């Protein structure tokens, strides 16, 4: 299976919101669409899913135009919601039915996800009768749930059909650390099952944790694209973590490297190249300074993103 997005364009009047976006996934994994707010990520996803007309371009699944009637797609939209006054069970069964999962299979999957996402108490609540017996009660309504639990139900809606292509738009936003880990665990499981995932996120650490390939969009244009490891290698190892037993601030500055942070002889240093870092190391050892830590690393995705987009993640 493969997913190819080719030359996707969208304009609203004179304003271009997606400018010739192309990328592809030749195998299972996670592809990240990154960008600041308004960069065009959600519009691109909507065009991929056929919710918005494309001005140009095509989206191919296994070489043929992506057809939602054929390709089983799970989508967690950036704008999330549930019917506030309908029971959760009704909503889950409805979405399952719309995706062709009905009857006992739908019940089984709802039960599985309820346990996996720890929301059984809302989907299968019990009430006590006057005689003191515990009997099943109707499932809760969405407006009785916390935001985090609503997000779990929304993830269930996206995954209930066991989709082969999963699109997650900001999947971890608004979650507490415990639920973030729960969601991450589920994402890992889906990757392990050989699913194709497209993830849009502002949380660079999360993207870095899961994604193999990325596209960074800035104001509708693709500013960086490719395999994350290759991109990082292209930048070289320019982040130096240095710890010594004495103050070496002057030596570091004299080498031409830039100190980012310094605390009790522990430095975060930005070097121009590995050669510059090695030259600094030689200078330190020549001066008989004990080097406790010398860790030369590639730049983080966060740094690459900030550099490419040219401004901070003000909306993240």
């Amino acid at each position, binding site marked *: 299976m493969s997913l190819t997005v080719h030359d996707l364009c969208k304009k609203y009047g004179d304003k271009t919101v997606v400018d010739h976006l192309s990328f592809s996934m030749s195998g299972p994994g996670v592809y990240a669409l990154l960008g600041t707010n308004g960069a065009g990520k959600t519009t691109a996803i*909507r*065009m991929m*899913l*056929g*919710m*918005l*007309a*494309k001005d140009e371009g095509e*989206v191919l699944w296994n070489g043929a*135009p992506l057809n*939602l*009637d054929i390709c089983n*797609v*799970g*989508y*967690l*939209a950036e*704008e*999330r*919601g*549930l*019917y*506030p*006054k*309908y029971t959760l069970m*009704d909503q889950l069964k*409805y*979405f399952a*039915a*719309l*995706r062709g999962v009905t009857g006992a299979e739908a019940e089984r999957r709802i039960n599985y996800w309820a346990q996996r996402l720890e929301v059984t108490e809302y989907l299968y609540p019990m009430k006590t009768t006057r005689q003191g017996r515990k009997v099943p009660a109707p499932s809760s309504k969405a407006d009785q749930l916390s935001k985090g639990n609503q997000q779990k139900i*929304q993830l269930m*809606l*996206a995954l209930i*059909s066991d989709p082969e292509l999963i699109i997650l738009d900001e999947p971890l936003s608004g979650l507490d650390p415990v639920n973030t880990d729960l969601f991450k665990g589920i994402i890992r499981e889906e990757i392990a099952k050989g699913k194709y995932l497209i993830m849009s996120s502002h949380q660079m650490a999360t993207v870095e944790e899961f994604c193999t390939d990325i596209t960074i969009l800035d104001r509708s244009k693709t500013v960086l694209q490719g395999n994350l490891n290759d991109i990082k290698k292209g930048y070289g190892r320019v982040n130096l973590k240095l710890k010594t037993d004495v103050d070496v601030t002057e030596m570091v500055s004299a080498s031409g490297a830039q100190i980012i942070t310094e605390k009790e002889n522990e430095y975060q240093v930005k070097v121009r190249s590995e050669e510059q870092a090695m030259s600094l190391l030689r200078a330190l050892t020549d001066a008989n300074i004990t080097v406790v830590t010398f860790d030369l690393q590639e730049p983080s995705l966060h740094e690459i993103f900030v550099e490419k987009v040219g401004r901070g993640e003000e909306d993240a």
Partner: protein
Amino acid sequence: MRKAEFAGTGKVFRFSLQQYFKSAATYVMLAVMLLGTAGSMLLMSLGMNRGNSIGSSAETLYIIDESPYEVDWEKGLPEEIKGVVSDLSLEDQLLALDAGDTKGVAVHIAWDGEGGFWQVTAYTGKSSAVAQFEAESWADTCAALLEEARYSALGIGEEQIALALSPAVYDNLTEAEYRDTEETEETWSPARQIAGSAYAILVFMLISFSTSFIVRAIAQEKSSKLVELLMVSVRPLALIAGKILAAMVLVLTGAACAIIGLLGMRFVLGLFGVASFSTEGLGAILQGLDLVGVLVVIVSLVLGYVSYSILAGISGASCSTVTESDAASGTTMVIAMIGYMAGMGTAALNAGGVIRVLCVIPFLSVYIAPARYLVGDIGFPLLLLSWAIQAIVAFALAKAASAVYGALLVHRGERVKLRQILSMMKGGVRA
């Protein structure tokens, strides 16, 4: 617009309908429809009977005739009523009626010296079961018989009496109206007016209820922010078609409750011997409602419902919040109101050129054409033409809607204006 775009309509319909019938508000609405119409029937019937606790047809007319003319009351009166020339005075006759004769009407014929005419007055007893309007109609019948007897006393033959008593009516027409009247050979009729008005009210009620339901349902769905998730599983057209069908079933259930309330109260009143409210016009509609008549009404209502619902669907999809839905339903309601006004305003007109033109104007024809066909004002070919035009308009609307529903559903922000919707239609939406 392809068949695939409607895939999933049934599932959306079932879910929407299921949720309607899980809501207590729906049962409150249906109860209001049922009890409201039953109550209206009760009040109208009691009003018609003017306070008489029981009501049914009169059985005996007690005629206190002070005229010198020889009226053959037994022969002149229709078979369903017995005419008795009373020997009692008016006071005694009224006492006799008050004593318990619930189905008797006293008709007093006396000369009014001041006015210079014969006064014919009908009286009923305190506990009379006879409606006042029926008693008055018997007074009219007696007055007509007295009139004949007066001419007969002058030695005039039956044919000449008939000629003399035939009424002279007046009218005031422009030349165009005169030509129009010549073509149709019919003038104003209360039956036609009531039939036309009643049908227009029925259509307006159905459309206004369903428009409000559809706009609100779609705006609610949008505000729930579930639309994008839904659109992965079902096409926008199916999403809205399912909701339109569910609203239709709900509105028709409401209409059925109203009819059950109406007929149920009629039945209950019948058990207690109380005459139910009815009119000549409604009778005309009901008389025209054989199987063909029912089909005519159903086809017309479905075509009208579909057209108005698509408009309502676009209006609902243009909203981002439920609070915008009232304003959004404005356009559809204005068109519905124009149709209603056209139906009401022309209800009294005969089958002239105006009616024929209105019968082929989409959105308006649904208020006029079926009732006109049922009372015989227009022929089947014109009705068929009105259906065809409405069907073409509905199809064109559905096609246009299929191009914009998707974009409207994912739209956020201010309510989309008509100009923007038209611009979306040009651009198309779905890939």
